[in-house]
């Protein structure tokens, strides 16, 4: 005998009790009890199912399912007689439909999730497509130009092509734009190289594209380049001008033959410190020779500041000029300023203010040249 209710019986009772709960009775019987061979369930009208189970080796139960309590009551006596003299009713009651506890995430099966996500994606894509289509027609272009200030501020060499990268940023977050950028050098001497690509660029919403322009300068100096252009957004929107970006660049000669001078400070009313800044775009393997000439010097000598000038000749002065020549050591640095200090020393009694020293600097010129490895006189470079 089984020790529990047969699953097939369970299932049958569940089905039978779907509309109205069945009435269950459980009876203790003798451990050798069994229904007669000719016993059939319809022997007792109202009984639907029955099953004998062994609770233990000495204990056997009969469980019966009735149409209703009334049916059991009507056939209670006959059923008890059938079960024998040792029978007793252990339990009676209605069979309650077993309700499984609701699993809050049980419905979250992978397939369900995939389907839900897919549906959502399709929905959003659809929406996005519709929106994108709208933006592709109506987006107002909103591009800006930018360049790395540090890279742009580095000096360039005369005669050598150099790039300037312009970043075109599309500030519109939904509509893509097309921009066509053109550099306009202001002033003579700066040209765009032939290999520069002027084709327009497409910029995705919120993204940026970099366009590189290459230039070459014919002579040293400060150049201003205005990066200008047009931008297009939606198909039906007219093109607009991009706000121009102006950049000033500094171009250096291979050898700076005319270094700039500036007053550092008036040391006192009879001497002033003057800075000489040399801008070379190529190395000077033999060093350089510099020559500072002061016109109408009066009683002013042009002296070296020993901290920055180590190899100076004796200062010379006559009624018309004061001159100092000095050499600077070889340098492999390129496009980096080299600074030297001169001292203007009044040997007479004249005193000067800072403004007067600055006025005097107009008469001071500095020339520079590559030092020759053999002699300072040369016919050609």
């Amino acid at each position: 005998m089984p020790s529990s209710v047969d699953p097939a019986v369970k299932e049958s009772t569940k089905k039978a009790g779907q509309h109205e709960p069945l009435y269950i009775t459980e009876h203790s019987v003798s451990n050798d009890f069994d229904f007669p061979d000719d016993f059939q369930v319809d022997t007792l009208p109202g009984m639907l199912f029955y099953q004998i189970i062994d609770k233990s080796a000495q204990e056997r139960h009969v469980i019966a399912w009735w149409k209703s309590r009334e049916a059991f009551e009507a056939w209670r006596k006959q059923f008890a007689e059938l079960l024998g003299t040792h029978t007793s009713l252990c339990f009676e009651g209605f069979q309650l439909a077993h309700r499984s506890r609701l699993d809050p995430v049980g419905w979250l099966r992978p397939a369900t999730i995939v389907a839900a996500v897919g549906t959502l994606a399709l929905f959003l894509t659809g929406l996005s497509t519709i929106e994108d289509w709208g933006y592709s027609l109506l987006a107002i272009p909103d591009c800006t130009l930018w360049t790395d200030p540090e890279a742009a501020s580095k000096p360039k060499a005369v005669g050598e092509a150099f790039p300037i990268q312009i970043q075109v940023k599309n500030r519109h977050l939904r509509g893509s734009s097309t921009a066509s950028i053109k550099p306009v050098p202001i002033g003579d001497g700066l040209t765009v190289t032939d290999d520069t690509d002027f084709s327009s660029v497409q910029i995705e919403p919120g993204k940026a594209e970099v366009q590189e322009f290459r230039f070459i300068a014919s002579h040293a100096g400060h150049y201003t380049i205005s990066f200008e252009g047009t931008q297009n957004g939606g198909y039906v929107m007219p093109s607009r001008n991009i706000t121009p970006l102006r950049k000033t660049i500094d171009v250096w000669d291979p050898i700076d033959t005319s270094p700039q001078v500036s007053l550092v400070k008036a040391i006192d009313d009879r001497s002033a410190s003057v800075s000489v800044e040399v801008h070379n775009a190529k190395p000077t393997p033999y060093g350089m020779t510099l020559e500072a000439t002061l016109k109408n010097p009066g009683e002013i000598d042009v002296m070296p500041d020993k901290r920055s000038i180590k190899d100076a000749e004796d200062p010379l002065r006559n009624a018309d000029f004061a001159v100092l020549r000095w050499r600077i050591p070889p340098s492999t640095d390129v496009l980096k300023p080299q600074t030297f200090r001169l001292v203007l020393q009044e040997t007479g009694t004249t005193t000067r203010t800072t403004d007067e020293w600055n006025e005097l600097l107009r008469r001071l010129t500095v020339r520079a040249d590559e030092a020759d490895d053999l002699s300072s006189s040369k016919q050609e470079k």
Partner: protein
Amino acid sequence: MKRLRIIACIVASFTPIYCTLAADSVAVEGKVIETTKKAGIGAFTVKAYPTENPDTSSVSVSRDSKPLAQTLTLADGTYSLTISAGVKAVILQFEKLSYFSVPSQQVVTFTPPKTTVPDVAAVKYGYGQIVSTHDVLDAFKIREASFNAMAANLLPSERKKFIESDIDSLKNAGVDSQTISAVKAQFLPP
């Protein structure tokens, strides 16, 4: 009257001293002329270096040599150097950045108490540019005019010697052979 006599005595006593000092030095004078403007150019450094052999046409000065004397040209291009009379000859070297001088160096033998040196021609050039043959020829014209002014009756042999010295100076400075040939053809005819 007594005071005048005292002054006269003082002047008389100083005169020999002054004459002795003057005799102990030699003045070297000359002028540097810019070839384009045909005018004197100032702020040229003129350095006098000692030389052992005044006859040599090939002059060279070591970079580490210290000049005996040096000066600047005045705004009109003139210069004057005072050299000790014990020195028989010097090498004069002319320097100014951005200028090439013809000659860049020359040997000067002293003739006390004053030695006048023929004009030196200064040719301006830019960095990376070669001094043109035309400019060098102009410089030799200035030199020739100076020779003529200094000594109109200069013997052809002496004139040739000066020009040869200048041409050697060009060679030392690395001037190209075509320019030197052009100078020879024009100023040193066979």
